[in-house]
């Protein structure tokens, strides 16, 4: 149960840190590196508040051992915008009131961006009607199903779906670029 020196790319920056090898990626981000934008809501993969992007895919960072993610490119909420400008989805969350307390919000944002990429790659969900279609027909039900791993106790779900619907196209363009 010793410490180890670990290397990551976080929000485009190389990071070297010595940490307990038992550390989850979530605790490493929050406690060792000060990326407190990523939130802990259950520490057992049930709430999605800790969602981050690893090489563009969304994961629950509480269920990820940090040592296993060395050398990978990790994006947290702090890395979504650029040069002080909000990511279009962040802006849409503000406009559509896609949060109240704001605690689940970083996870919702990262999850939605990862989800946009999954749709772009034509990965079906349990509610996808036509599995042989060339592209997933995105409707509200698809978005709600795919975002159901991110709990919001304040109940901002409708604003979240509105914000995602409005920006889904932009997010997919971003993913292709």
């Amino acid at each position: 149960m010793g410490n180890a020196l670990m290397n990551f790319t976080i929000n485009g920056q190389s990071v070297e840190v010595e940490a307990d090898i038992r550390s989850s990626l979530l605790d490493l981000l929050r406690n060792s590196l000060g990326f407190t934008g990523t939130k802990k809501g259950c520490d057992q993969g049930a709430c999605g508040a800790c969602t981050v992007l690893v090489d563009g895919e969304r994961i629950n960072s509480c269920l990820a051992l940090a040592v296993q993610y060395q050398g990978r490119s990790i994006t947290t909420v702090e890395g979504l915008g650029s040069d002080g400008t909000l990511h279009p989805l962040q802006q849409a969350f503000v406009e559509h009131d896609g949060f109240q307390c704001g605690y689940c919000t970083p996870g919702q944002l990262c999850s939605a961006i990862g989800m946009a990429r999954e749709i772009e790659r034509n990965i079906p969900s349990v509610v996808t009607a036509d599995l042989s279609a060339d592209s997933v027909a995105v409707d509200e039900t698809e978005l709600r199903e795919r975002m159901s791993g991110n709990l919001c106790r304040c109940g901002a779900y409708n604003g979240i779906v509105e914000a995602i619907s409005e920006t889904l196209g932009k997010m997919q363009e971003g993913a292709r670029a």
Partner: protein
Amino acid sequence: MSAHSDAAASRPGRWQPAVTQDPLLRKHGAQGSGALGQPVSRIEGPLKVQGKARFAAEFPYEGLCYAALAFSTIPRGRITALDTAAAEAAPGVVLVMTHRNAPRMKAPSLMMSSPTAAGASDLPVMQTDEIHWNGQPIAVVLAETQEQADYAASLVTAGYAPLPAVTSFDEARKTPRQLDNILGQPPVVEIGDAEGALKGAAVQVDQIYRTPRHNHNAIELHAATVAWTGDELRVHDASQLLDLTAGQLADIFGLEADKVRVSSPYVGGGFGGKCLWDHQILACAAAKLAGRPVRIMLSREGVFRIVGGRTLTEQRVALGASADGRLDALIHTGIAAMTAHNSCPEQFTFPTRHLYAAKSVRLAQEVADMDMLANTFMRAPGESVGTFALECAIDELADKLGLDPIELRRRIEPEKDPTSGKPFSSRHLIDAYEKGAERFGWERRSKAPRQRRDGEWLIGMGCATATYPYHRFPGGAARIRLTAGGQVTVSTAVHDMGMGTATAQVQHIAARLGVPLDNVTFEYGDTTLPRGVIAGGSTQTASIGGAVIAATEVFVEELLKLAGNDSPLAGLSLADVETRDGGIGHRDDAARFESYESILRRAGRGELVCEAEAPPPAEMEAFSMHSYGAQFCEVRVSEITGEVRVSRFLGSFDAGRILNAKTATSQFKGGIIMGIGLALTEETNFDPRTGRIVNASLADYHVPVQMDVPAIEILYTDIPDPQAPMGARGIGEIGITGVGAAVANAVYNATGKRIRDLPITLDKLM
């Protein structure tokens, strides 16, 4: 230089609750001032979406150590052995604190027992070997990292001498207890002979309704970062009662009140749960013992073990009606589980005290004590579960009478408060029903159940009344600071847990003082600010309003003094003027005006600071003040699996003036969504043999997820309450009220089955 009001003075133009209206209600142009009611986005929104809003567990300290808890595994008895040696020897451990070495601390006092009491329970915290509930903390481990603390806490072992414990509700209810009062109200209300009238009534409904325990389950885990500097205590908390927490901690640790500073700028959801529980007290004690700052963040299991939730209820509602739908008898009685050490009786009879006219009334509630974690207030305590019973019974009565449920409510709409006899300050329930019904398409509801079908899915509609009382807490103060540059800062130690407090108050202050939104800052969330009220019971907005009105009066009087004889305002008093356009003007003479900046400049002042305390809430004594709503639900129920899906929802509210269309709509929707959880999925399960919660995780306690939530439409009357500051009644709780019944009534309309036992799970419909 500060100016303070003389709270007892009564001057012309001053807001006198229950006598005069908030001047903002008659202020020229306030209705369309552009600030009040507009859908302004949350001012802290950009910080939150960037992860820059700092929550309680996110404040760095040099030498910080991390805490983890070990919990008892029996409900009642004594600790006979407590082995901490392995934990103490584990890597990184700073210390292990138990009742043997914890600092001596006074027990918390029960909330509402004194002006500084904040205890959810009055049991001493880690002071003796006594165990009072299954899950009580028995040890705190501090270590250099969270991993080390968590591991070491797992090494703590305990032996117990158990004592008999009441852990089953069926056992507890054999010895019910009648409280002296229910939150200051009589536990029993009787008008006429309701039981007799029920027996003689032409149409009767007499049913038992059951609601289970619930947990708030805010997504932010309860957390605190605490640090001592000498005898000064600094607490970064996740709190909805800052000043009470500071006062209570001072009392527990024997400190002067001004030695404790608690702040909580962001709270990751509260709903009644982010109050003072054992974890903050234990963190402060352990930090004192270690001589180091401590961060404690409960695990989700830890939240279930030591933070209480809503208790279970069993309610009887009996209605006796004449054939034309007038109530001869209205009976609402029942029992709620409680512990001997808390002050939360779950006031489920409260909605019935104010909603409907009846010739005779009997309301009574009792409690049954159990040896369990103290239950507490959770969103709309009382009304959330009380409206489930009452509004299901009303629906059952409408069915028996062959009346539309809205028409029945029209016939039992009272002219004055049915139990207190007081006039209503403002009540537009039927209006809310009519607008909601039209918008929802209520006329498409079939009168008889099981008439609409889409394949395996039976479709039904239901409605129910929402209600929650208006309260304004006394004791809150506000400070207004005006700079020479025209910037206004209003400060009070209140809370924004996502309700939109700061945003709505910026709008309110801009409208009240006649300045642009951009010139206003609202400071909150820190006990160094003027004393604030708690964020609970939908009271905060009105309470802040009362304090800001009082501070504004002092502010205007001070400015009139400073303006002196060379001003167009010379000779005018508070009653003659209004604030507008960044200054003060004569109410009826547009020409007599001077800007704030000009007044300060001529007086040679760099700033003006005024502070005042809100006048006592006399309006609550004189009037029956409540918010109302009509909840409309459409469900689809699978005839094969019994699965219930809420397919449409509409809430039509009468909650006074709405201060921000965007955030208010979100708050109403959030309440409705928590109500969908109450209706369909949420239940905290205690093992009746051991008193231990068996579903202490978000995997096993089912809060609504994105897929459980349909499109929700919100309507509101926006009719200002003439007795309330800003004309606004609170809106935090009302959204959840009536939802359980609206869903259950829709399930009945779809299936013909009455489910009177929440949650409405699949098995109950098979």
